[in-house]
């Protein structure tokens, strides 16, 4: 499967470059997202842009993974900390040094707070024909010596959805 490379944001910093030739028949173009010591692979087809994280409007809500809102290309996107869904320690309040990877897919359009990112074309180590994305990754790419499962966007936002759904119940917040 070939995939278009992510486009750099006009007002963002370094857009992934030199990605035109990525993605051969046995390879998949992926965005390698650095979260501390961990590297996570996302399908590059889901990436739509990169931006700086210095303009995030905080939104205080019940979801630790939801860090706020940002405007990229005139569109407003929710800023999500993927660490929560991956079982890592969430970022502290200081997010200015982070980069935002704007992604879009069935789970919607949102921006992921990441330390760094690369774009690479990696061999597909395993591709399951079906299966629940939440249980096992349907695609695993070969990254060095290890197999790197492709993370589904829906899994990254699941903690946000669960928390905001629960928050719909009327809660103290009005003049009590």
């Amino acid at each position, binding site marked *: 499967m070939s995939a278009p490379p992510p486009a750099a944001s006009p*007002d963002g910093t370094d857009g992934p470059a030199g990605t035109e030739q990525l993605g051969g028949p046995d390879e998949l173009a992926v965005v390698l997202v650095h979260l501390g010591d961990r590297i996570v692979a996302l399908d590059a087809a889901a990436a739509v842009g990169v931006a700086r994280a210095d303009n995030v409007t905080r939104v205080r809500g019940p979801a630790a993974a939801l860090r706020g809102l940002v405007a990229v290309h*005139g569109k407003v996107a929710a800023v999500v900390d993927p660490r929560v869904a991956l079982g890592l320690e969430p970022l502290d309040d200081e997010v200015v040094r982070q980069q935002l990877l704007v992604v879009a897919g069935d789970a*919607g359009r949102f921006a992921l707070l990441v330390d760094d990112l690369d774009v690479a074309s990696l061999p597909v180590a395993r591709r399951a024909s079906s299966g629940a994305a939440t249980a096992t990754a349907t695609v695993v790419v070969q990254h060095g010596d290890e197999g790197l499962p492709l993370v589904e966007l829906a899994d990254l936002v699941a903690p946000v959805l669960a928390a905001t759904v629960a928050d719909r119940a009327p809660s103290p917040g*009005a*003049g*009590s």
Partner: protein
Amino acid sequence: MSPSPGFTEEARENVVALESGVLALEAPDPSSSTPPAEHVAALFRAAHNLKGMAAMEELDELATVAHRMETVLDHHRRTDDAVDRTTVDVLLAGCDALSALVEAAEAGVEGPDPTPVLATLDATIARLDAVPGGGDRAPGAATATSPPVDPRSDPPRDSPTALPDGAQGRIRVALLDSARLPGARAIVVVRRASSAAEVLGTEPPMEEIRSAERREFQVVIGACDDPAALATAIAGLPEVASAEWEPAAAAVPSPGPQTPEPHTPAPPVPGTPAADPARGTSTTSIRVDVERLDELADAVGELTVNRNRLAREVERSDDRALSAALRRLNRTISDLQLAVMGVRLVSLEATVERARRLVRDVSRDLGKEVTFTVEGEGTEIDRSMVDEMVTPLVHLLRNAVDHGIESVDARHAAGKPAAGDLRLRAYHQGSQVVVEVSDDGAGIDLAGVAAKAVRLGLQPADEVRARTEQELIDLMFTPGFSTREEVSEVSGRGVGLDVVRSQVTRLGGDIDVRTRAGRGTTFRMRLPLSLAVADALLVAVADQIWAIPVNAAVETTRLRRLVGGVGAAPLSARHRDELIPVIHGVEALAGLDPTAAPSLPPHIAVVFDDLGRRFALTVDDLVGSREIVVKPVPALLAGMEHLAGVTVLPDGTVGLIADLPTLARRWRLLHADSPALGTTDDDDDPARSGGADRQRPDAALPVGLRRAADTLAAVVGHPVDIGAPRVRVRAGDPVPSLAFAVPLVGEVAGELCFVVTGYEEALRSQGVDDGWHATAVSEWANMLGSQFAVGLGEALGRDVRVGLPSALADAERPERFGIALRAGATVVELDVRFDDRPAPATPR
């Protein structure tokens, strides 16, 4: 199978054109110069187009209904028989079926069964054919997509078939050999032809062209203004090698008595782009997805943000030449913004057509005669607003026919003509659009309003006498108020104007009323041109910039002293001699504890009005005001109800738009059971509406429940006394057949959640499907849901919360719990079914 892109829009336009045309058959516009026969011919063509489009999309039921309607219209087209009222009814029912089938096709679901409509259409066809001179051919025979061959005429050598009756000729089309999808291209050709002509069929039939991928075919043309020009236009389509017009005389040797009858080109159906020859022969408009327009607007917004960044740099540089260039750039960007917003504007024509049908149906149901006049249907308004304004408009029109215009007898007695005069007028006023609904009825019975207000306990008898006319009119917007004693199937009872006002307010508009006894009433809605642009007050709350739509705010103020906030007494403050509830912005908007860093008085507050009650929202600072572009809340934040939208601020950051009605609703949920607002030493006047509400027998209940009682009464047709919901939890009980079913739930993030839904379906099943009732009941269901959550939570010893239907759609076991609300004679109960859980020890 989903229809092709663009099909739904085009089909909708044809249905709307058909419907308005049929209505015009019943009540011809005296100012119209179109002869009735031409009008029928135009309708025939619209039905025919629709049939052809549906057949190409393989939407058989849609094509069949359109075909039968076409047959009925064809009878009148050929015989010049006047279209009687019964036939109009049947055709309108056909339009309804078409509309439902189009919507179902778009949604990709099975549409309603058209059999009943087809039966009435068939009966009408049979009736028309039974009329002497009316049965000149079998139903539909001359309008089949594949034209029948006249066995008595020799086919011409160069043509596999002769032309059918009514054909002017054919267009011979050849596609390029390189055409990649000839079947699809043929469809495009036929659609293009349909836009400017009556297409009687293709040769070979379309099915064969598609399956055999024929690159040469003919389009048989009936009525058409300029078929040669049409052929030229088709020749200009992509992948078309040639298109030649061949008139009937050349195509078919004269078959003597079988010569096709001369056809006068039929006029277009008004308002039907697809049937408009003017549009068909020159490309004056294109369809653009709303999404693309949004992208364009986003890009312009981004341009503005970058312009502002540039402006800051220019200011620092103090360079005059740069400043002048920036000013020119500003003007261009402003023009661009206006142009982009202008592209989103659409006329009110489609809304007006719905209104015509509504007025016609309601007046017939009520046995009233109504002359409905529309002014300004070409008035343009943002696409997003058009859909939103329908519900309040529908209610005002129903109200006018039901309550405003008198019965024929009463009008005669008053010396008025039998037919009431109902006018819908729309016009621009500044950045708003004004929509007026006026009737020449009896006017509002202000004495009746006053008496009812006293009887309902809304006003003490001695006070109501002192009320001004305007104050009495305002009482009609009180939840649950109506001056009509009997339940009306048309306008219901007890719920209405309050919902209209709340919807208009939610849209950022307002509504006022003028009435004169014996002369009539005018309701005037003022709505913003667009939901996408709003004037907003920018305030700071906990280091965030929040936008509050200016028309939602009454004023800004400084509160000297806050009282209450302890125990059951809500936090409140005196404002203009009234004690009003205070909502802490930092708590309600930012989710922070206001006591953690208490602010010192005076407290800056934005005062707003919700359902007749004033509230004060405290903020940290007032930042300014500006026009904002309103964007929807990103899906991930959809659960945050206190967000009405978001906007991009001039510095490129995101501003949050506060949803004031939600803040007020939350306040009511928390405090409506409270005996009163907190009192100050000098206070002897509890909140006005609170005092009035306490006069009602069910005053101990939250206002939402009281309103629900009124709505429910209108739905079930007799008074309903809603007691405090009793929650009974039983193991394994089946859910009885109930008026309102609320299917449920699952477990999200470790919490039990349930979904308050299903009431729309219940309403529909009872024939109450308008937004007016649905909105009220929705609020009621949410209100009950909240109370139920508390009860169930106590019974289970766990947190139970109201869920979000869409997010819970995939909950693993949605059948896990059942809850039902019974609209019994006097009591609403909540029954809970547990399929696989033990009954709690202490049911409530």
